[in-house]
């Protein structure tokens, strides 16, 4: 699967996509979902949660393990993808459509990579 070129990426394997200047949608990359295996539960954040760039946003449980998902930006959670409550497998099936949370009022951002730079990070880890 190719990583969309209009998305940005962080080293901890989350993607983000700008909805407008001050609002992003966040999810996990194809590389991350493959490493995790089949997801059984997404422990979504709550609307109103404050996030800190580089700190845990929420967690997902796969058949292998629980893993923290990190917030790529500091801000406030203004929407969550509730469909994932019943269908965590959407992340495995379409990681770049299955957004987890929308974060707005952004005050800080992790180092963002474009698709090519992110693919280089993945190649190093493999």
């Amino acid at each position, binding site marked *: 699967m190719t990583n969309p070129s209009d998305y940005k990426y962080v080293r901890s394997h989350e993607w983000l996509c700008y909805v407008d200047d001050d609002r992003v949608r966040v999810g996990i990359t194809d590389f991350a979902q493959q490493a995790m295996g089949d997801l059984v*539960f997404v422990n979504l954040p709550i609307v109103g949660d404050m996030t800190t760039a580089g700190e845990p946003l929420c967690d997902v449980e796969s058949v292998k393990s*629980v893993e923290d998902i990190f917030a790529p930006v500091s801000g406030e959670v203004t929407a969550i993808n509730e469909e994932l409550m*019943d269908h965590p497998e959407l992340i495995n099936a379409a990681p770049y459509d299955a957004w987890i949370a929308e974060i707005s009022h952004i005050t800080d951002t992790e180092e963002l990579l474009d698709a090519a730079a992110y693919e280089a990070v993945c190649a190093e880890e493999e």
Partner: protein
Amino acid sequence: MITDLYYCEATGLLPYRNQALEEYLLRRVQPGELILYLWQNQRTVVIGRNQNSWQECRVELLQQDQGYLARRLSGGGAVFHDLGNLNFTFITTDADYHLPQQLAVIINALAAIGIKAVKSGRNDLLIADRKFSGNAFYKSGANRYHHGTIMVDVDMTDLGRYLQPSADKLAAKGVNSVRSRVANLAEFVPEITVEQLKKLLFHSLGDTYGLPVQEFLLPADAGQKLALLTERYANWQWIYGRQADFDIQLAHRFSWGEISLNLQIEQGTIANAVIYSDAMDGEFIASLAPFLSGCRYDTAAMIDSLQQAVINNRQQAVIIDELSTWLQKRG
């Protein structure tokens, strides 16, 4: 590559403190290090990260027996700990994490006393097709741990009582436990003790990795961090509050009629309550619902709220009394 092996034993039996030390070790482990942490909890049910506390554990019964309910960072199902159980955690970085070798530490330790243990599926260790060790996994950034139980001489009656599914109808999202046929090591080696198992694991760690084992010494500044983490694990919000919303139906037949409490729980609090009853004084019973809305989903809090109801006659007082006693005993 692992260059430094450490061994660390918990000093107390309080689950929240022991979980705190486990997380403390996870956050500070360095590349090249592997820590084996051994710990025991007194009378505790530990549920997986994404489990419903009320679905997996007889909370009331456990509290009445002065037991603890704990939620862990890793996934999977509910387990029961007492002093007949030994917990282990392998803490290392992503690059040095190697599950087969970690499990070999346990399998080799048991082989030294003539027990043949085998891995089954992703999460279990078995002897003669019966599970004595359940394993679970957590990863945060570059660090991860693999932990599990080893049943040495666990009280099976307690285990069955606390993990027994409740009769209440509960609809919750999350991860459900899978029942297994379990066994204590003592069934195979009657003279085995937890102390002996600790020594076996210590030696097996060094032998399996072919490195000397160093004792892990807590830095002087660990106390404050441990206190904060302990508070977090003991916190109502962590154990009961921050879990997926769920609906529960509590039903009971009293001498004055049958009652069904239908509760919608959001963030551990009763967001909406509806009460159905075929009792003579149905109006009074229905009027109790608003007292439960907004109250924590917790027996003591619910009883307190019911006591606020305005009572007009002796029968109504009996109803409140009997409802309170039932909620208390529901266990």
